[in-house]
């Protein structure tokens, strides 16, 4: 019980003190999980991060569930997940209530409109940054462009696009597996 409480409070702090999600959380994990508690080894954290990136869901949240499982099994995973989500839920609910009340004040509206334009820049920048890393081959670049056109101009639902991509990926992997077995 004591261990679960420690897990909960450690992840509560991680959730509370990191802004921006994903990679911004790595230094906090380092401090809380390795330096303070010594629950896992340094190399393990990087492995966990790498695995968390390729799984569905938030990177930080996957990493928390991973670490919770390693430290104390499924109860540990539950404690870690609850810990990392508690600050978000509390803070966002307070803000959600507040924002709808002040949204029509011109000063707030101007700031929000400025932020909206910046959000578009953030999203495009993220696509460009990840794009440079993950579209090194002509085929990858073509896949990225096709999905961009489908979602932005043809207006295909992105759920369909991603499910199709996963099925194609599995089919491709299966095909190479068969080929390697024959060879």
């Amino acid at each position, binding site marked *: 019980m004591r261990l679960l409480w420690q897990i909960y409070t450690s992840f509560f702090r991680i*959730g509370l003190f990191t802004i921006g999600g994903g990679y911004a959380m790595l230094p906090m994990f380092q401090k809380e999980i390795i330096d303070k508690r010594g629950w896992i080894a340094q190399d393990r954290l990087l492995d966990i991060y790498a695995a968390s990136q390729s799984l569905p869901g938030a990177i930080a949240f996957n990493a928390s*569930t991973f670490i919770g499982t390693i430290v104390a099994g499924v109860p540990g995973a539950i404690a870690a997940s609850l810990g990392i989500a508690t600050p978000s839920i509390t803070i966002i*609910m307070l803000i*959600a209530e507040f924002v709808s009340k002040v949204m029509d004040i011109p000063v707030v509206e101007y700031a929000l409109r400025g*932020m*909206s334009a910046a959000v578009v*820049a953030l999203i495009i*920048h993220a696509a460009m940054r990840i794009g440079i890393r993950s*579209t090194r081959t002509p085929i990858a670049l073509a896949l990225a462009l096709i999905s961009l056109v489908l979602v932005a101009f043809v207006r295909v639902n992105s759920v369909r696009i991603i499910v199709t991509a996963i099925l194609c990926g599995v089919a491709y992997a299966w095909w190479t597996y068969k080929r390697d077995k024959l060879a």
Partner: protein
Amino acid sequence: MLISAMLVFIKVGALTVGGGLAMIPLLQDEIVSRGWISLTEFTHMISIAEMTPGPIIVNLATFVGYRLGGALGAIACTFAVMLPSFAIVTLLSSLLFAHKDNPYVSRVFSIVRPVVVGLIGGAGINLGSQILRAENGYGLQFAGIDLVAAFIFASTLLLLWKTDSHPVQALMIGAALGLLLFGITGG
């Protein structure tokens, strides 16, 4: 509605590969196009989710859930979005380490990853075409484009590209420019 919202978030949680921003095209298709939340409000939610502590996915799910069904909705949607990754990670944690470097697994991602990049870019274009569009009769505009919004977009994009600054910093600059420029031009 709350049940369908939870189903949407389970779906989004299961299909979001590559972190917070990859969730945006999915949510836009599932929530904005159903008319549950307006695009303007959705964009504000993204700003706030980026600027507040915690994982962006959790923040967004809480926000949308709260708007759809109060505190209960917030908790339900957050739970729903976390469920798929929780199940996958706890069930497969030992297996995953064994197969992390498996070439077949990485081949699946060699297809999925570029597609996700395209989805994020497409979501940016979709959102941008709405946010940067001028409303008739208001503020500075040219050829149907809101010039102030376009300027803020271009300068924050340049800043992010050149300096790789933190998203929160970019949003703060966007807010400051918005206050200043929309204030001067009268929105």
